[in-house]
């Protein structure tokens, strides 16, 4: 089992945000994590990554439970994270940003090189020595994804990668995610744009009030108007 999350609970201060999240990813897939704002999608990713300490639960990567460990150790075991709002290091150059992402990575994970990244996005090579803070949103998004890839992850947790990006760039980002998956990396994608997400993902998780309220394939999801109405639409 590549990824097994069970009974995950988490708090922000005294607010109980995650109420026992559970789902699995048996082999590398693209799984979309949908839900309204405030449902707990970002928190789920952060709790898995150890940025928010889970109060209880299991996060097993290749059958090794990582829950409760420090974030940097979780990252080294093969869980990658592309944060909401990109979070490039603005005072570092593009090249230094990429270097920050390099690590040995987990056994059996697909390997990536900095050269691959420059091939993917020639724009990055052009801006190699520029401070990352001066780049456009789309360029920063590319940078963040590449940066996380250089850590050779088994599973990549991606949080709202297309937020605030022009449609053309959105397309590029989605293509990259498809590519990553084809190379053998699992992707858990939190995305607001449901139609976008359903185009790349093979499976769907819907979150509501800190819990998973629907698990299924994308086809199943297409026919479930009730789920869409109850948990996704803003009415």
């Amino acid at each position: 089992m590549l990824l097994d999350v069970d009974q995950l609970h988490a708090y922000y201060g005294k607010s109980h945000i995650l109420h026992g999240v559970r789902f699995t990813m048996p082999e590398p897939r693209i799984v979309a994590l949908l839900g309204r704002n405030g449902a707990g999608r970002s928190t789920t990713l952060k709790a898995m990554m150890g940025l928010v300490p889970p109060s209880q639960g299991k996060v097993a990567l290749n059958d090794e439970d990582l829950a409760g460990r420090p974030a940097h150790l979780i990252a080294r075991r093969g869980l990658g994270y592309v944060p909401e709002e990109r979070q490039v290091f603005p005072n570092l150059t593009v090249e230094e940003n990429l270097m920050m992402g390099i690590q040995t990575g987990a056994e059996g994970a697909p390997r990536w090189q900095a050269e691959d990244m420059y091939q993917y996005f020639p724009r990055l090579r052009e801006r190699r020595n520029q401070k990352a803070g001066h780049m456009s949103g789309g360029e920063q998004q590319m940078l963040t994804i590449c940066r996380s890839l250089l850590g050779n992850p088994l599973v990549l947790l991606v949080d709202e990668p297309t937020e605030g990006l022009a449609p053309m760039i959105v397309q590029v980002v989605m293509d990259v995610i498809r590519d990553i998956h084809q190379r053998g990396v699992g992707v858990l994608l939190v995305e607001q744009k449901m139609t976008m997400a359903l185009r790349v993902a093979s499976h769907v998780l819907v979150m509501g009030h800190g819990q998973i309220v629907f698990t299924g394939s994308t086809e199943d999801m297409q026919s479930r108007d009730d789920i869409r109405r109850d948990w996704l639409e803003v009415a």
Partner: protein
Amino acid sequence: MEFLIVSTLNGVIYGMLLFMVSAGLTLIFGMMGVLNFAHASFYMLGAYFAYTLSGLFNFWVGLIVAPLLVAIIGMLIERYMLRRVHAHGHAHELLLTFGLVFIFEELIKLFYGDFPVSYQRPDYLNFAIFNLFGTDYPFYRVFIGLVALLMFIVLFVLLTRTRVGMVVRAAERLPDTARALGHNVPMVFLGVFGAGAGLAGLSGAVAGAFFPTNPNMALELGVIVFVVVVVGGLGSLAGSLIASLLIGVFSSFAVGLDWSLASLFGLIGLGDWANSLGGLVTMPLSSISATVPFLLMLIVLLVRPAGLMGSKN
């Protein structure tokens, strides 16, 4: 003329010394948000350790080992005290470091006595490097300046050209993101804290042999260092450097000047009237030289809290 040159020289060197001590403080604040009241205590510990070590072995052993000892103490404090209190908020961290100031001062008094100790530089460093207008200028002052300069260069190279420095710079901005990329940020913080402490210790070790080494060192220097980091901008190394030089040079000059507000009025012919007012108006600059840095700090805090070069917040 003599006054001008000597004061400038002294001022620049004093400024470099201030920078050595404040560099650590501003780095630590920029990275961890902790304003370490006990930072100047590291300066004092450096001086005293160097004094003991130079007595047991020689001056150079003191100069090299004392900062290392202080760095270790700094790391112990971060790991076992600050980290424990971190969950309770920044104010608690501040208060804890506050308490440490007293403990360090009292421990020094316990071990060394409540009076200055005779920490001396070795004789071969005790010569005049040049002769200015009839007075000898001590080489050791220049030595202090050289050590500070060297330290600045090393720091600069480390931060901008090494992988460790890159991680420090990244973690200073976005610590969580750095963690999520596999970097052991808590360890980085520990290292930075230790390095900052060690730097302060080094300045103590070097300066203590020239300036008085007494249990009051920490308090005397501590407040000025605060002024420096505020004026320079909390978290900015470059700002600290500029502010240190500014305050260093100013302090050097001010001590020898007898200007006052009244004398300023005198320039436009109202001297007698101004002098009759007494009080603040007639106070010479030399007397209030200690006050001006605080005035500067106040102005900076109220007008532009980011200081000269700060960019955070």
